């Protein structure tokens, strides 16, 4: 935007902003986007919104609906400024805020922030609200609820009420989406003789077709569209890095869905493997594909490139990457390209990945029936 236009706009904005309602101000804030889009207008609108009184708190919370992560931060700034002032004046509308907090249709982050401000005036709200939040859309509420359930289970176990403890741990596991809590539950469950399917719990994709190695000498293969990027024909053979390659079936038994390509194929260096699988969704929906790998990678869903990243050996962890994708009803093809480079250090030899399908809270989304069955149902 030219500087003169920016200056002119900045002069005109205050009058427009002063006349706007909280909803209108929030709409201006929510229009922020990439590369500073909507920034100047948002600055003025957010300032005005932040100066509101306690009666604007609920409209601000309601405005979080549909807010992007970036817009969420803008609205958080306004909400916290108003809430801070409202508390100091003894005017925080606790009852209305609580009603917002318990409404699971509302924005998860906004609900959590509202809850934390509610606690400042009503610490008893935690005991009242958290136990019912085991399956909440907000990962943070779930975490608190799971923590309470784990404590309950531990008490029961120490009182030697084994059956009740087992039931409590199983209930806790239903809500657990964070690995540390899952581990804290799994250990006693196993000691109590219970079987746990971690792969299903987390939603890991475990059955794959693999093909490789293709050449990645000097990391140049990252940008080469080898045949699997153009077609998925699982009976095909192609020229690979050194020899002809063909698809193989592979299923990982790792609890965390890790596919070790160095073992599944061989510890090739300067090489690429493609991994394909199908995920059957019960309906068209938004999900997160959460990937962990120390290697460079590309991810396609139904033939569309979802994301790509050329970083090697800077560590890996569960849920390292969260890629939002849109699934269609029925079968969805997921294709990964996992690239190994030629580093010689001991810590640069891993060639592996893990990927799972979950919602935004991290709860697994299980596959529906097979695509054939789903197709029959659609007819």
């Amino acid at each position, binding site marked *: 935007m030219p500087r003169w236009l920016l200056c002119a706009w900045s002069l005109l904005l205050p009058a427009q902003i002063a006349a706007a309602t909280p909803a209108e101000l929030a709409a201006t804030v929510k229009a922020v986007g*990439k590369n500073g889009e909507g920034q100047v207008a948002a600055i003025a609108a957010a300032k005005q919104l932040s100066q509101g009184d306690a009666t604007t708190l609920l409209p601000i919370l309601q405005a979080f609906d549909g807010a992007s992560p970036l817009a969420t931060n803008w609205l958080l700034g306004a909400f916290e400024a108003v809430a801070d002032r409202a508390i100091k004046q003894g005017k925080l509308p606790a009852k209305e805020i609580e009603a917002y907090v318990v409404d699971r249709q509302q924005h998860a982050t906004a609900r959590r922030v509202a809850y934390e401000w509610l606690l400042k005036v009503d610490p008893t709200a935690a005991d009242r609200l958290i136990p019912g939040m085991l399956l909440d859309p907000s990962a*943070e509420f779930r975490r608190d609820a799971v923590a309470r359930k784990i404590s309950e289970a531990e008490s029961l176990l120490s009182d030697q009420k084994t059956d009740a403890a087992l039931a409590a741990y199983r209930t806790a596991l239903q809500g657990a989406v964070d690995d540390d809590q899952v581990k804290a539950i799994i250990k006693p469950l196993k000691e109590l003789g219970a079987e746990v399917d971690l792969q299903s719990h987390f939603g890991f994709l475990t059955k794959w077709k693999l093909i490789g190695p293709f050449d990645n000498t000097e990391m140049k293969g990252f940008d080469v569209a080898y045949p699997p990027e153009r077609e998925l024909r699982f009976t095909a053979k192609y020229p690979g890095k050194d020899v002809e390659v063909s698809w193989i079936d592979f299923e990982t038994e790792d609890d965390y869905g890790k596919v070790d390509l160095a073992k599944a194929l061989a510890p090739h260096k300067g090489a690429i493997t493609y991994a394909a699988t199908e995920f059957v969704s019960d309906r068209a929906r938004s999900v997160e594909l959460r990937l962990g790998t120390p290697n460079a990678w590309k991810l396609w869903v139904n033939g569309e490139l979802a994301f790509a990243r050329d970083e090697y050996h800077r560590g890996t962890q569960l849920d*390292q990457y969260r890629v939002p994708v849109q699934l269609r009803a029925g079968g969805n093809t997921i294709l990964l390209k996992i690239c190994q480079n030629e580093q010689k250090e001991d810590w640069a030899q891993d060639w592996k990945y893990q990927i799972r399908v979950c919602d935004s809270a991290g709860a697994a989304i299980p596959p529906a029936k097979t695509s054939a069955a789903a197709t029959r149902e659609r007819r």
Partner: protein
Amino acid sequence: MHCLLMGLALILTATLANAGDWRQFRGTAATGIGESGPSASAAGTLEVAWSADLEGRGLSSPIVVGNKVFVSSSGGYRQDRLKVTCFAADSGELLWDRQFRATGRTTTHPKTCVAAATPVSDGERVFALYSSDDLLCVDLDGNLLWTRGLMLDYPNASNSLGMASSPLLVAGTLVVPLESDSQSVAVGIDPATGLTKWSIERPKRANWTSPVILPGKTPDDDLVLLQSSAGLAAVRPGNGEVIWRYTDGASTIPSSVVAGNTVYVPSHGISALQVSPGSANPELLWRVERLAPNTASPVYYGDKLYVLNRANVLLCVDPQTGNTDWQLRLEGPFSASPVAASGHLYFVNEAGLVQVVRLADEGEVVTTVDLGQTVLGTPSVAQQAVFVRSDGKVWKLAGK
């Protein structure tokens, strides 16, 4: 007359406040030198004046503006809570605490965290950068003025080990380094609006160094030095124009230090580069491989260059020749860089042991203070005190 005196008093107060401030990583001038640290006598009696609790994690340095200490932290199970907290510098009273959410990735190595970059202030606003590439701007009372989620614009400008380069305010531009193996840029941001003035491509290589200022004849002539594995780039902060480059490689962890027209770069040990005004070619004065610093950035103070090497030995170096005048073994290991004030250097090792070294013909540890917690962030010097933070606490250290 009364108004004139009042006005003069206000100007004087502001000037004094500015002089005593510590407004960005390694101080307002990014040199590691504090203009308002403990006096020489207070350095010998340093003790904890106050401490305050923090939540979450943080490696960033505190910054000080007037009587306010600002600290950034990251919290939550996924470190996706981005916090800015403000304390009164004289008492440690919590003034305000604000939280936002990460819009970018929060994966880091367990040793570091999402709040590793040190915030910056221009005296009216605080700019906090996080490893998620979120850049927050709040006023001194904690009100959000603007924010950018820079990973939206640069989706691969991240490092799975974590980003740690601090932004730098120079000549009216906030320079934000976002350098990594996959996507690598430096961005010049307008502090008033958060809008991008310029962005330049940088070497695609992980980088944890922070930019420094190469002073010009006037502040408007100042250049920003961006360091990477490729070397140095001297950039005009107003428009991102690269004025000169040093391409003989440099470290990606300890940052350079500037004294006058000389830049001491962690390159092949330490390389001293002289930059003549208006010249596009820095001249290599000397290079000494054995001066290689570990994690801590060197400090130029009192006509000497101080380097902390991999063996936790402090080297006092003649800046004209690169020869070592004296050396002093300290108790390490260190992640934090030293800072200087009133003839002393302040070190904090990873175990939280503060070691105060008096600088004379030789160096001597005159005081130690055991903070008892892991400290990885560089301390700050302001308000006749030293400010240190761990994950869980911030301390003010002053003389008795």
